[in-house]
C-alpha cells in the first residue's frame, strides 16, 4: 500500500508541473459560454460594417488628442 501511495504521490507531483502556465502573455478568452454578446458594429448604426465602426472608433480616439485639434 505504501508503495502505491508513494507512486501516486510521485505521479501527482510530477504532473503538477504541467499545471504551470504558459510562459508568454496571451490574450485569454476564459471558458465563458453564457449568453453571447453581439459585435459592436452589428446594429442599426453600423449595419455590420466593421470598417466603418473601426474608423469611427479611431476618429473618436483622436478627439482625445488635443494636439491634433490645436495643430501647433
Amino acid at each position, binding site marked *: 500500500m505504501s508503495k502505491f501511495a508513494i507512486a501516486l504521490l510521485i505521479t501527482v507531483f510530477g504532473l503538477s508541473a504541467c499545471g504551470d502556465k504558459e510562459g508568454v502573455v496571451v490574450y485569454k478568452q476564459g471558458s465563458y459560454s453564457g449568453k453571447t454578446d453581439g459585435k459592436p458594429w452589428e446594429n442599426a448604426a453600423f449595419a455590420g460594417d466593421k470598417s466603418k465602426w473601426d474608423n469611427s472608433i479611431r476618429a473618436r480616439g483622436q*478627439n482625445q488628442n*488635443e*494636439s491634433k*485639434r*490645436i*495643430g*501647433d
Partner: protein
Amino acid sequence: MLIKKSSADSNTARRGRLSRSIQGTSYSAQLPEAIDRRTFLKRSGVGIGAGAFASQLPFSMIDKAEAMGSKPKGSDAVEIKRTVCTHCSVGCAIDAEVQNGVWIGQEPVFDSPLNLGAHCAKGASVREHGHGEMRLKTPMKLVDGKYQKISWDQALTEIGTKLLDIRKKSGPDAVYWIGSSKHNNEQSYLLRKFVSFWGTNNCDHQARICHSTTVAGVANTWGYGAMTNSYNDMQNAKAILFMGSNAAEAHPVAMLHVLHAKENGAKIIVCDPRFTRTAAKADQYVRFRSGTDIPMIWGILYHVFKNGWEDKKYIDDRVYGMEKVREEVMKWTPDKVLEATGATEEQLFQIAKTMAENRPSSIVWCMGQTQHTIGNAMVRAFCVLQLALGNIGKSGGGANIFRGHDNVQGATDIGPNPDSLPGYYGIVPGAWKHWAAVWGVDYEWIKKQYASEAMMTKPGITVSRWIDGVLEKNENIDQDSNLKAVVYWGMAPNSQTRGKEMLEAMKALELLLVIDPYPSATAAMAAKARKDGVYLLPAATQFETVGSVTASNRSLQWREKVIEPLFESKPDHVIMYLLAQKFGFEKELTKNIKVTNNEPSMEDTLREINKGCWTIGYTGQSPERLKLHMKNMHTFDVKTLRAKGGPCDGEYFGLPWPCYGTPEMKHPGSPNLYDTSKHVMDGGGNFRANFGVEKDGVNLLAGDGSASKGADLQFGYPEFDHVLLKKLGWWDDLTEEEKKKAEGKNWKTDSSGGIIRVAMKVHGCHPFGNAKARASVWNFPDPVPVHREPLYSTRPDMVDKYPTHDDKKAFWRMPTLYKSVQQKNKDVGKEFPLILTSGRLVEYEGGGEETRSNPWLAELQQEAFVEINPRAANDRGIRNDDWVWLKTPTGAQLKVRAQVTERVGSDTCFMPFHFSGHWMGEDMLQYYPEGAHPLVRGEAVNTATTYGYDSVTMMQETKTTVCQVVKA
C-alpha cells in the same frame, strides 16, 4: 469597493431620502398636468415593487435608470440640443440628447474650441439638473415656521401686494434685489432694467463678492475690468503665474490649455498659502502668508527692477506712474518681504527671473486676490507687474482673471449692479438718458419711479452689506429707510460673510422672497430665523431656457433650450415679467421685446442690449451671429479662437466683447485686449483713454508709434466724439442718417454706431482712444498699491507696521469700519492663532446647494471639513477625521471634520465654502422645504467669517481671517 453598510449615521438617512425621492410617489401625485411627461415617467417607470426594492438600496440600478428616463435609444428620435455648462466661466459646450422631452444623454462637444469636449466633475454631471429630484417644485410660503405649497397665482398676488405696500410705506429703496451670476445675459440685463423701473439702485449680484475688486482695479488701470486674454491664449504663454487661483479645482478645463502649454515648455509657477492641485502641477511653488499678496508681488517686482528686466520702452510708451510704483517697490527689500510673507529672496528671485526670461508671461488670479479689504490694491499690483514686464496686450501674456460663475462676466457687464446701468454706463443722468432712449421709455417716468433724483444717481447698497442695510441704525445709513424686504434671486446666502448676523437680519425683515431652482440654503436659514413672511418661487435652470452666456474670456455663447421647465418652475425672465405685471410696468419693461405667454423673447432682449451697450462692445453679438458660431464651432482655431473659412470666417469664437459697432459692421470680437499688433478690425486695440488726457501736467495719452496696427493715428489720441470727428475731418465719412443720430454724441452714446464705424472701419482707430495704462490710480485710496494687514491678523507686529485704512462714514450708503476693528482685535491671534481661509472644491460650485443636490457630485464630498496641518493638529490632539469645533472671533463655532494634511501650512486652516445646512453643530434639515433639501449638508464657513470690506468695492474679506480649532 463594497458599499459600506452604514458609513455614517447621516448616510442611512440619506439613503432613505434618496430612495424616497426616486420612488417619486410622494410628490408626483401633487404635480399638475403641466409636467405630465415627468409624471408619466415616474408612474410608468417605477412600480410598487421597484419602490419597495429601492427602499433597501441607496439607488437601485434598475430603479434609478427608470427614474432618470432610461437611455437606450428606441424608436423615438433623439434630438441634440447644444448648451453650455452652468458651473464655471470656462464655457464648456455640451450636446444634450433629448428624447420625448427627456434629457437622456450628454455628449462631449469635441468641436468646441474652448473645451474640446472636456469636462470636470460638475460639467460631466449637468444632466442631473435636468431631472433635479431635490429641486423646489412649486411656489411655497412659510406658514408657522413650515413651508407650504401654494399656487403661482396666490404667490404672485401676495408677493406683489406686500412689496407694493413696503414701497408705499418705506419707499422703493426699502427693497433689496439680489440678482444672479447664473442668469443669462438677457435675464441679467432685464433684471437691472426691472429694478430701475421699480425705482432703486439697491441691486447687486455675486460679482460683488467675487471679482468686484478685479473689475474696479483692472478697469481703472487700463480700461476694461475683464480677463484680457483667453484660456486658449494661455497656450502661447512661456510662463504662467497662478496666485490666488486654484484652477485645477475651480476651472479644471482651463488646465487643459495650461498643461498643454506646460508640455510645450511653459513654466508654471504657483504662489498660494495652500499646496493646491494646481500647485501639484507647478514647476515652482511658493507658500506665503495669506493676505500678503502685495509684498509678494512687490518682492518679485523688486528683482525685476533691480535686474533691469522691466520692458522700458513699453513702460515709456504705454504706462503712466510706474516711477511711483518703483519707489514703493524698492522699499520692499527681501528681508521685509520675508518678514511679511514668509517667502525667501531666492524663491522670489526665481519667479522674477522665470517671468522675465520666459516672455510673454501670463498671470492668473481669482478670489485669492480679490476677497480682501485691500483687494482692489492687490489686483492692481498684479496689473503693475504685468505692465512692468510688458505683458499686457500680448498674446501669451495678459492678466487672466478667471471668473467664477458661468455668467458672472456677463452679469457684471450688463446686469444688476448698484452703481451702474448695463455696459458700465454708471448712473449719472446722461447714462440714464442713454438707456431711457434705448428702452424707449421716458427718462422722467423712470425718475418718478425713484424716491428722488439723488437716490437715482447714488450707488445702492452692495450685496455684501445688505445685512447692515437691515440692522444698522437708520441715522447711520445713507438712504431714507432701512431695508424691509430682500429678494434672493439666484444667490446663496452662505457665500456671504458674517452668517450669524445675516440670520439676525433675516429675522428683522418684513419679507424675504427667494427665487431659485434650489432655494434651500436661504429657505432653511429663513425658516430658522422666522415663522412667516418668506416666499419661495421655483425658477428654471439655464437648461430650460435659451439665452446667451459670457465666458471668462468674454466670448458669448448661445444656449438652446434642452428641456421644458421642470415641475412648476418658470424661467427667470418669465417670473420677472409676471412680477412687473403686478407692479404695473410690464409694458415699459418689454417695449422692444416680443412677449409670448408671459415670456419675453430672449432674442429681442439681446437685440436691445446690442442697441445700447456700445461702451464694452456688446453690440455686435446679434443672436443670429451667436447661433451661427454655435453651429460652426469646428471651424475655429483653438489657439487663436479665429475661424478659418466657413460662414464665420475671420471672426473670433463667441465674438468676445468688445465686439464693436453694429452686427452689420462685422467686427470679429477681441480675443486679447489692448493688442496693438493687430488692426482694430482684426480684434486689435490699445489702452483706453478713460481718465482724461493729462494728469498734473503729465500726458496720459500713449506714446508715438504705439497705436494699433494700421491705425490712421499712430500716436495717442482721446476717445471719439462728434467734436473729434469733425476736427479730424472725418465727420463726412458718416452717412446722413448716422450724422443725425451722432450729432452731439460720443462713441458710447451714438445710437447709430456711426462714430465707431468711421473710427474703426474707415480709419483703423480705436473709438475709446489710445492712452496709457495707469500704474498709479489716483482716484483710489491707495493710488500705488500698499500692503495693509487684514482687519483680523495673527501678527500684531505687522498691524503696527502696515495698518489698515481709516473708518469710512458713508460708503455705498453704509458706514464701514477699518481701523477701529483692526485695533480692537489687534491681539486676537492669542485666542485665535490660526489663519482661516476658504476656497473651492472641484465637485461643488458657489454656495453649493445645486451641486450638493446632485447625487453624482454629492457622493464625492459628503461632509464639510477643515484642512489643518499635521503640526497644528498634533498640537491640538486632533487626528485625521476627528470632529472638531472651528471657532472664530464672531463667537460662531462650526462642527466639521478635520482633514489633517500637508496641503496647508501649520499657521493656516482651509475650509471649502460650498457647504450649508448645518448651523453651529445643528442639522437644519427640519427647516428645509420638504423634498428640496440638498443631499449633503454641512457647516458653512461663512457662518463664522468676520467683518471686513474692500475700500473701493465693498468686497468682503473671506480669505484672511482667524480661527481656533479644538477637538469636538
